[in-house]
């Protein structure tokens, strides 16, 4: 009997493993649209100069998941930006580029990008359209030249068709590639967490979540500003400097010593799923992150003045905040088939 149970269990496992990816529902034209959730500010990027269409989105989705963008055809954008991890790189402080090479910064989540005034931890990139240029050409990421990418795409029937659908003809150039990827990434909206449902009156916090939220508003929200949970400023939050990396952060972009060791405030949406944390992925748990603010702050000339004596909280308060942070998990976003890999 036990054996039979085991076998039937195995059969279930096998069946679930071999689920045909083709059964994924098709993305509808109506579902590809610009969204500004109620109460959110005006986004920095809109699609006025990049008209959003199902075909543009689909081209972008194909490119995002296609290792053809890398020099050895092995690494795609999706390799390091995984949907179940809110498009961060689960479990990796630094992602693996081609030939196992490691970068020196943690792969950030991709969500609600249109509200980002700038990209990358140091804010060096100012427009979502040119953002993929970095990872595509970086020697330790995808290590590919734009001209090679275009050459490879041009010899692919599939892409000639996808470009024709999206743009009316099969001309393939960097502008078309970038605008299509922007259509895909720019419509990755996360606004259906429990927190959002509570705000719109469709759900209620538990007592502990509510306590955590109140504490969060008091102690964290000046930088992690609602509803996007970031003020998109650059701050030195007192992380000890990793001598091996010697990452000066924002100062690399501005050349200003007053910007040394400052990094962009990340959004906390889906934070439960985006470990490890910080620009260098040094913390693996939310507890470690909050403990840093309580007792780990290293003083330096550019330390954010709000953190000069750390953030005071009891263990109970810390735990309540963590419970609240988990209400920012948006399961609908993490499992939305429109953003999933195309097989």
């Amino acid at each position, binding site marked *: 009997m036990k054996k039979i149970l085991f076998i039937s269990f195995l059969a279930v496992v096998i069946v679930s493993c071999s689920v045909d990816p083709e059964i994924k529902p098709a993305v509808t034209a109506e579902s590809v649209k610009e969204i500004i959730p109620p109460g959110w500010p005006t986004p920095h990027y809109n699609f006025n*100069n*990049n008209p959003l269409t199902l075909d543009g989105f689909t081209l972008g989705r194909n490119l995002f998941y296609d290792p053809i963008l890398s020099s050895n055809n092995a690494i795609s954008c999706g390799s390091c930006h995984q949907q179940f991890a809110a498009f961060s790189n689960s479990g990796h402080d630094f992602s693996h580029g081609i030939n196992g090479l490691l970068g020196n910064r943690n792969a950030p989540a991709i969500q609600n990008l249109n509200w980002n005034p*700038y990209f*990358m931890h140091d804010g*060096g*990139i*100012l*427009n*979502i*359209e*040119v953002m993929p*240029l*970095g990872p*595509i*050409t*970086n020697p330790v990421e995808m290590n590919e*030249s*734009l*001209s090679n990418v*275009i050459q490879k795409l041009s010899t692919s029937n599939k892409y000639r068709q996808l470009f024709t659908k999206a743009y009316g003809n099969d001309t393939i*150039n*960097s*502008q078309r*590639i*970038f*605008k299509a990827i*922007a259509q895909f990434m720019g419509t990755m909206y996360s606004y259906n967490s429990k927190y959002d449902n509570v705000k719109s009156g469709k759900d209620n916090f538990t007592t502990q979540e509510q306590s955590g939220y109140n504490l969060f508003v008091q102690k964290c929200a000046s930088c992690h500003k609602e509803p996007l949970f970031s003020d998109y400023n650059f701050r030195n939050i007192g992380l000890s400097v990793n001598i091996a990396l010697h990452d000066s952060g924002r100062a*690399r*972009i*501005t*050349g*200003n010593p007053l910007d040394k060791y400052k990094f962009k405030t990340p959004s906390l949406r889906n934070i439960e799923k985006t470990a490890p944390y910080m620009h260098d992925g040094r913390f693996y748990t939310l507890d470690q992150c909050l403990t840093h603010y309580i007792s780990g702050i290293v003083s330096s000339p550019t330390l954010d003045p709000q953190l000069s004596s750390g953030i005071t909280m009891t263990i109970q308060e810390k735990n309540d905040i963590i419970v609240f942070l988990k209400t920012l998990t948006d399961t609908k976003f993490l499992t939305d088939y429109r953003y999933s890999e195309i097989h």
Partner: protein
Amino acid sequence: MKKISILLIILSGLLVSCKKETITPPEPFPTSIVNDTTGFLEIHIGNVVNGAPLSLSTATYVSASNDTFSVDIFKYYISNVKLVSVSGHTYTEAESYYFVNQADPNTLHLMVKKIPSEQYASINFLIGVDSVRNFSGAQSGALDPINDMFWDWNTGYIMAKMEGHSPQSTQLTKKLVYHIGGYGGKFKGIRQVSLSFPNNAIVTKNHTPILSLQADLYKWFISPNFSDFNTASVITGIGNESSAMADNYATMFSVISVTN
């Protein structure tokens, strides 16, 4: 009177329809001009080192600091071309972006378009790409990042780029690498150039004058900021060094001739 008004109405109708035509997608270059009264100015650029024609990779040159060097890459942007006429009018070319690449002879000939028929006494332009186009999203044509003149770590164009080799380089590979960018803030790579013509350039619908310019790479290392390859073999970020080099290359252009 009636006849005149009817004629005016018909004429204005024609004008409107002409105007509409000019808005249609970018015309293939350099086909007929829509507006009858405008013409072209052809610019020939000769890149040189201390007066000697620049040949990539093979030739060696001597810098002002007496360092020997060779040049592998020499590229830069020219944008926002303006022409000042003898009567004091300034013509500002729209969509005025030119990518100059020593390795591609086609890029050494620029054609300034839709210039009103006049006599012109001087030219202004930017070395580099104006600030707005640096953060306006994905661009095409001369501004396509495929030209390898767009930073991937920091939004913005490399306004001018020189790579080469010198025994005086501090790099193990003996390389010289200068990627000068920056469009805003304290350190910019964009520089304004103003050049007077020795004789007027006469632009008409049927006549295209040729402006012959020289760009001297030698000037990158002399004045106002003298530099030698041992102190600055590589400049690829934004800072005092990049700004100083931009101040130098701002002086690299001179007019050889205007041929009508």
